[in-house]
């Protein structure tokens, strides 16, 4: 549950403020900004049906940004004794004095009003080594019982961040995140299944279901056979959809669009705000207060982060503007999306499968890399459960594929959207930027070549 009074990991608001005040008291620059990140990372890792490593790291990092006129420099340190802090402040100031002027620098922000967000869940922050080990051992036991092989990862982060400026701005946020992912393989290495969850609240992580799903996928994918590459109707399970959609986060930036180096650039100059670019059922927002996907309501510079609508019914509604670019273009600044929340529909995954005459069901993706930013295209591979659907039913497991796919085309080719859920969208299994997406049925998805990998 949220909002307990128990001791949280990371510095408290009072401790953060005191530390900021102490550092600001040492500062001699025209302006100074402080960012503090503090907390723990705990992890338990399994492979070949054993716990291979587990650990916990505790850290506090302070960034001191010093400004003289338009000369700016920063120093990060995790040494917090008085002498080290003084040295870091002097170092930042010495660097700033000799740094060339940054003509785009704008004065530090004064006090701001932030939306109230508490992303700290005690269930996650208080998670013990033993609890992690017990949860991880569920995957091992499920695999062992079937003489299969499990490899998994539970990643826990709990802590706080703070920002302060010499213009009396102060912001504080504390939050948690947890991801639990599991791969189960057959001992002959001929099949592999994956399942995972990511949330802010450990209580919503379903460890038993993850073990069951990974095992089920691994069983179902046995005996895979070849399927020709080509353009297919595909169903992207939520994790696969989220892994692709999270690549859109950085695309909603006005500056590259206005400068002619983005999909959102308009031929002849300007950007494509207001144009209908995607299927009308595509709506994408970001919201720091999104339940179980909370994020800080301020940027590192202290700029407020609000709920924003980026795409509404297929129309590009917003782009992010840095303070400098906003001033230059005469609009209000807008922070880049801190999380990705895509609306969906009512269809269940089963409904979606029933609606496919011939297509491919994709569990998750791997090694996604950009190809062509002009059309937001990416390459990557399917992984851990790929199936042919025929006449509304899973017909057979098939080999993995490399895909080459434009996301702008994908969002225009959406056929059915399911119910959105938060997914473990980071390939590394780290609890990262919150991504909430529906499963997607899309037409003309390019499966470019076969991959032998399992």
């Amino acid at each position: 549950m949220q909002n307990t009074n128990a001791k949280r990991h990371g510095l408290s608001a009072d401790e953060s403020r005191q530390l900021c005040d102490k550092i600001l008291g040492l500062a001699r620059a025209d302006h100074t900004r402080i960012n503090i990140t503090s907390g723990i990372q705990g992890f338990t890792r399994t492979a070949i049906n054993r716990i291979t490593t587990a650990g916990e790291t505790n850290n506090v990092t302070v960034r001191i940004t010093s400004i003289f006129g338009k000369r700016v420099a920063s120093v990060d340190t995790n040494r917090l004794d008085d002498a080290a802090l003084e040295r870091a402040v002097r170092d930042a100031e010495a660097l700033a004095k000799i740094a060339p002027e940054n003509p785009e620098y704008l004065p530090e922000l004064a006090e701001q009003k932030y939306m109230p967000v508490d992303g700290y869940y005690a269930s996650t922050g208080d998670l013990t080594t033993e609890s992690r080990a017990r949860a991880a051992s569920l995957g091992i036991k499920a695999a062992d019982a079937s003489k299969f092989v499990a490899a998994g990862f539970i990643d826990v982060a709990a802590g706080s961040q703070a920002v302060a400026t010499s213009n009396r701005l102060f912001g504080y946020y504390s939050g948690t995140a947890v991801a639990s992912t599991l791969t189960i393989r057959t001992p002959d290495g001929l099949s592999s299944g994956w399942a995972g969850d990511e949330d802010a609240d450990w209580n919503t992580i379903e460890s038993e279901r993850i073990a069951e799903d990974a095992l089920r996928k691994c069983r179902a994918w046995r005996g895979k056979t070849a399927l020709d590459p080509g353009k297919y109707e595909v169903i992207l399970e939520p994790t696969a959809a989220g892994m692709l959609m999270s690549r859109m986060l950085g695309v909603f930036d006005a500056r590259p669009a206005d400068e002619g180096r983005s999909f959102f650039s308009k031929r002849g100059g300007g950007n494509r705000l207001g144009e209908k670019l995607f299927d009308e059922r595509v709506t994408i927002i970001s919201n720091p207060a999104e339940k179980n996907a909370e994020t800080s309501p301020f940027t590192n510079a202290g700029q407020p982060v609000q709920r924003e609508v980026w795409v509404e019914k297929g129309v590009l509604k917003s782009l992010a503007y840095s303070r400098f670019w906003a001033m230059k273009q005469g609009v209000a600044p807008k922070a880049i999306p801190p999380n990705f929340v895509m609306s969906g529909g009512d269809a269940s995954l089963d409904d979606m499968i029933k609606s496919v005459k011939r297509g491919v069901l994709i569990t998750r993706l791997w090694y996604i890399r950009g190809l062509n930013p002009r059309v937001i295209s990416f390459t990557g591979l399917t992984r851990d459960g790929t199936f042919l659907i025929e006449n509304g039913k899973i017909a057979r497991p098939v080999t993995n594929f490399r895909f080459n796919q434009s996301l702008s085309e994908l969002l225009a080719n959406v056929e059915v959207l399911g119910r959105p859920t938060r997914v473990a969208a980071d390939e590394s299994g780290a609890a990262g930027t919150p991504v909430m997406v529906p499963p997607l049925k899309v037409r003309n998805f390019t499966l470019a070549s076969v991959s032998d990998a399992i």
Partner: protein
Amino acid sequence: MQTKLDRREFIKLAGAAGVAAARPFQQTTAPGPDAAEKDLVMLALDAARSAGASYADVRITRGNTELVATRERQITNVSKNETYGIGIRSLVGGSWGFAATRDLARNSVAAAARQAAAIARSNDRINPVKTTLASVQKFPDGRWMTPHEVDPFTIPIEQKAQLLFKTNEEALRVKGVRFVTSSISSIRESRLLGTTEGSLIQQTFFRIGPNVNVTAVSDDNGDFQTRNAVLAPRGAGWEYVLGLQMQENVLRWAEEAAAKLTATPVQPGLWDLVLHPSHLWLTIHESIGHPTELDRAMGYEANFAGTSFLSPPEKVLNKFRYGPAFMNIVGNRTESGGCSTCGWDDEGVPAQSWLIVDKGVFVNYQTTREMASWISNLTKVRESLGTAYGQDWASIPFPRMPNVSLQPNTQDVSEEDVIAATKHGIYIEGDGSYSIDQQRYNFQFGGQVFWEIKDGKRIRMLRDVAYQARTPNFWNSLALAGGKSTYRLGAALNDGKGQPQQLNAVSHGCPIALFRNVNVINTG
């Protein structure tokens, strides 16, 4: 000890098993441990032992980085970063536990050491296992430092910024070039390792990573093309940056960015490929470096980085043909200028070099102390090959890639010779988009600049090129490798692996090389 061995010298040293004798460096000029840090290491080792650890290792690392970054005529970032702390890894029963803290007060260090042992004990209670560590010689006063001429931290920020501004200015002279970003990252790291087996090793690493990226935009904003200079990071000092002559060379990079706007789109199909070392290093990294990691082959990375097509070991070691008989791949933590070059690994195993592919046949993996015994009956190598590494004090050591390099042709084959041997091909310079599957079979790589070769001559620039291949087919299509004069190091500072993910700095050396009949696609 830093000199690179040629093939004949290497074989002589390597002996039948293909492993060069581990010869620890004792650089007498390298700094020794700080007395206070040494005390903390001893305190942590004692605390871990008292808490029941049968083995423990302790690392105090202090990492310093400095970044100067620009775009066009302005600065975008001047920053320094220091991260300092202690990490303790303990073995209780057969289970590992790890704890790390930035707080170097004696009681905090002792508490972290006890916590590492407690985590190990708790895991061992819930999931008891066996772990065997290969033996290692004790080094009670090991010292090593990256060979360098000029400590990059002694070069003033203004001088670095001026170099970048002059580079940007030159690029902006080229018609069509609208954007240039450039940066220099300097890294210094002190790493003190202590083990319960009696080693105490102080190492100091220098690495430097320059970057230049030029973007040209068409007159109507309808198209844009980038050309990254692909300046390899290096285990070296400031002298490396000076040697790159960025100011002089940027004109070519900028002209190439602009030329890409009007280059001919590639026709998909089978092409011969002439791969420059600034491109081929990454193909080696992905299709040879990663699949020859033993932890991957055994399933330790199955949930993230993946497994390996080179598995199980008994079916592939000394049997699997990677490529032609002139193909030799060496794992080498002593390569001059290599980003993974060191004196010892994070388990106190001396840096060494060994054959991974010998005359085209796969003969060895990359191992750590925990993994050496898993394949010693097949390789006859009982000791670790020294690939344990944790990215910093906060990260548990685990197997990471050494410098893995393709050896050059013993004949003096020049770049011109390789181009002349190509009838219908594409010359690729620089790495671009890259992606490979989780067992390292199917890959797709782009590049920075592409030239069509016809009848042994480069004739025109192409664009939107990427090639797709299957690792064994690709390496068996290797037709000709350049000689020593074409050998270069490519590198990355950010190779990701592990959960939690850690970054590793690693280099790959290779000559220019010709591959026959590779499937090329158009990414436009």
